[in-house]
Structures are given as C-alpha cells and as structure tokens.
C-alpha cells in the first residue's frame, strides 16, 4: 500500500526526469505498511503510550468549567481549542499548559484567583465543539465544577468562635449550598459558633467561597467531586431516613 523512497542525500537530489530513469542514488522499494516489525513497533509504542497516559489519572484534579464530563472522558473529548476560555466574560477559565499539573490544553479554573460567576446563559458551554462540556447543561445551578470543602477546620476563624460568614454570604446558592449551623462555643460558653456546612447536592463548585475566604490561605477550597466524596457501603442503612418514606 505504501511506496516509500529511500532517502536522498541532502542537497544532492539528482534530477533525470527527462530521461525517465530514476535519479541516481535512489531506489524505489515497495514495502508493506504493516510488516511484522512495524506491527510490533506500533502496538508496543501504543502500549508504552497507554502506560504513560495512566499517570494522567493520578494527576491533581482540576476545577473544570460547567458541564464538564467525568475527568478521563473530559480530557479525551476536549479538543483543546480554547473556545470556552475565550467565551468566559470573567476570564475565569484558563488553559492547562505542560508543567501546570493540569492536562495540557484542557480548560480549568483557579477559584482562588477568579471563580466561576455562574452566568445564567452559561456562554462557555454552547461554544464547545467537542461536547466535553455537556450541551445538556442549561441550568447553571445544576453544574458540578467541583465541590467546596471546609478543608482547614483549625484555621477557619468561624470555627474558632469569631464571626465571619464570608463564604456563606458569597455563595450564589445561598442558604442551600452552604448553611450555617449554630452550636455553643465551648471555650466561652456564652457565644455561638457559626459553622459553614457545604451540601454536596446543591454545591456547583463555582469557587466563590474559596475566592472570598478572608484567610491568607483559604480554609474552604473547591476540589474535584471524586477527590472529596465518600461512598457509603450498601450494607449501611440510615433507618431514620427510611422511616419517612
């Protein structure tokens, strides 16, 4: 199927088209494209590449734009064209580059710098030519870009008994994705602790809480859902939840 010509030597491509014979120093060889050696090479190389790719799954998970498919499918579907990056009116979406820890060419957000402002028309999704951002997402409140976690309970000042509520106030799905739970401050016994609690069924992972956190390093962070969520074994039954049904 493939006609390959053995290489000429640099500048010396000799021309003798007029005479109709092949140029000096050249032979035309016919070689099957998938010779045994080639086949072994291609499969072997493919396996090597696959082994390399398996490392991708162990990478740091990134906060993805709204509608992003599951991580592995997302990074393979994405054509890395950057049209979502450009569509974002807040420049929230960045493009992964080699060495950034995020799959190169794929879009991601760094909420601490610029969170997702959850535009109602979700301009980043319809421009995606690959469907890596699911065009079925029409309600931004149903997005799962990640999940906020109160990751540092030791430094969150609300948990030390100071009034803060900044993440609660910043949350665009206020009173649902983050609620404040009150309990007695055991240290003073006179005050309350207002603990911010994230509800995974409502949190879109927009990152406004992380962006707003007043600490030098945020105590609340958006992470990939897979990184954060646990999974109950099937043998665990919450009887009190079943009673109501």
């Amino acid at each position, binding site marked *: 199927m493939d006609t390959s010509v053995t290489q000429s030597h640099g500048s010396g*491509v000799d021309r003798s088209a007029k005479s109709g014979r092949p140029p000096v120093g050249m032979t035309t060889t016919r070689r099957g494209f998938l010779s045994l050696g080639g086949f072994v090479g291609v499969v072997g190389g493919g396996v090597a*590449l696959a082994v390399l*790719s398996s490392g991708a799954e162990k990478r740091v998970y990134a906060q993805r734009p709204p509608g992003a498919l599951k991580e592995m499918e997302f990074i393979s579907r994405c054509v890395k064209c950057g*049209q979502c990056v450009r569509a974002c009116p807040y420049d929230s979406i960045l493009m992964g580059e*080699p060495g950034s820890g995020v799959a190169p*060419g794929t879009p991601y957000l760094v909420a601490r710098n610029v969170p997702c402002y959850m535009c109602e028309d979700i301009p980043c999704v319809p421009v995606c*030519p690959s469907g890596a951002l699911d065009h079925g997402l029409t309600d931004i409140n149903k997005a799962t870009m990640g999940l906020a976690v109160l990751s540092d309970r030791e430094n969150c000042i609300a948990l030390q008994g100071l009034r803060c509520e900044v993440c609660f106030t910043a949350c665009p799905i206020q009173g649902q994705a983050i609620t404040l739970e009150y309990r007695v401050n055991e240290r003073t016994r006179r005050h309350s602790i207002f603990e911010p609690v994230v509800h995974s069924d409502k949190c879109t992972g927009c990152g406004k809480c992380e962006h707003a956190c007043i600490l030098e390093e945020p105590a609340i962070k958006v992470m990939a859902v897979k990184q954060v969520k646990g999974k109950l074994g099937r043998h665990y039954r919450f009887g009190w939840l079943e009673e109501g049904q």
Partner: protein
Amino acid sequence: MRYGKWWVTRRLTFLLILALFLVSARSGVNVLVGNYSGSTFLGVIPAVDPLLAIQSYFATGGLYQTAIIGAVLVGALYLVVGGRAFCGWVCPLGVVVDFANWLSRKLKIKRPFQGFSSSTKYYMMGIVLVGATISGVALYEMYNPVSILHRAILFEGVGIGAVSWMIVGILFLYELGVARSGWCKSLCPQGAFYSTLGKFSLMKVVANEGRGSIPKNIGEVCPEPAALVNILNHERQNGECTLCGACVDYAGNGSLSFTLKPGS
C-alpha cells in the same frame, strides 16, 4: 528564484490565518475563534483537527456532532488543496522549523543525520491511535508539539509556558543542528495523517515536459526529498509533498507547476 511568488503567498496565508486567530482570541470579533486544533469560522462553521477527532473517538468511543462536522470539513478542505498543504501553509511549527533550517544553512552547520525514514511518521500515527485506544486517554494531543506551540501563542502569550517553549525549542535545535525536516518529514503523526490525505488530494505539483529544464540542484530547496523524487519520476502521488511551491519558484520556468486535477 528562492523566494518567489509562492513563497510570498504561502507566508502571507500563514500570517493571515494566525492574525485571524489572534484577533479573534484577543477581541470580541468572531472571525476565527479557537486554535488550530478546533475553531469556529465566522461564528458558524466548525473546524476540528481530524486526527485529533479520531484519537478522541478511539479513546472515548464517542464523538460530538460538531466535532464530526468540523473534522469532515477540514478533511475535505485538505483533500482539495493538498493533504500536507496544512504542513506547508498553515502549521505554525512548520514556520519554526523552516526558520531553523534557514539559520542552519546561513550558519553553514553540517547536519550529521539524514532523519528517520519518511514512513516512520505513519508508525508514529499508529502508536498514537493504539495508545489512545488502549488507555482511553488521548494523551498525544496534550504534548503534540504543534498544538503546544499554537496554544502557547494564542493562550499563554510569549514568555509564559516555559515547558511549552522548551518542547518547541528542542525541535528547533533538532532542525538546526541534527536533521533537515527531521520532525515534519519523518516523525509528526499529524503530518502522517495529512500525508495520507495527500495521496488522494486534487492539488499537486507536477513536472511538465518541454517547459525548459529543471535546475540540477532543485533538491536544495525541497524540504521533502521523497516528494520531489515522486514528482520528477511522474509517479502516483505519495502524499509527502507539502505544496510549499519552493521548487515551482526555484525552477521559475513552468517546468514544475501546481495543478488541480485528480489522478497523476
């Protein structure tokens, strides 16, 4: 003439496409939004790198409709204008490599290596596709130097993305000091895909009898010796030609010319 009208047309085409991408990326104008991997022309016409779409399909088993349409449109375009016209006229890495080659010649650097055989790139393409199928991840597209370069230009800006520039730099040095057209002709899987299209494409360079003689040292200007031999021998097109027109310019007498005809 070494830098004749085709050279000028080719460079202007390259600059025009790059400028359209840059202007669209940096402003609200919707002329050519995206990059060389995927874009939207005039706000409606999708374009997607076909090899990337195939990798994506092999990795995930699915492909979104826009990606299919975009890949088919791009494939159809290069079936008309010549498969590796992408390499010669559009690819930004091609310009970097051409510059390295120009510099290498100016500095009279003796390049020790002929480069791998032209067919090596087909194996590279095979490896990329097999790898994507087995792993379910289109890994190559993340490190494809062509993509890395245009993403760096369009989205990271010069000076950022050190690793991106390092990868491009390695290929620059490879061209400068090791092998002529060492990446493009021999190794680039994307080139292999366009070469495959080029076996069937309409636009091609042909050698014309009785239009004067072809310069003896024509091989000096052709980046793809396998293509030149192919043309001079009047063989069935092997798809290696990048349609750069350097030989057409250099001969300058019509002995070599572009033609838009099916068949050889």
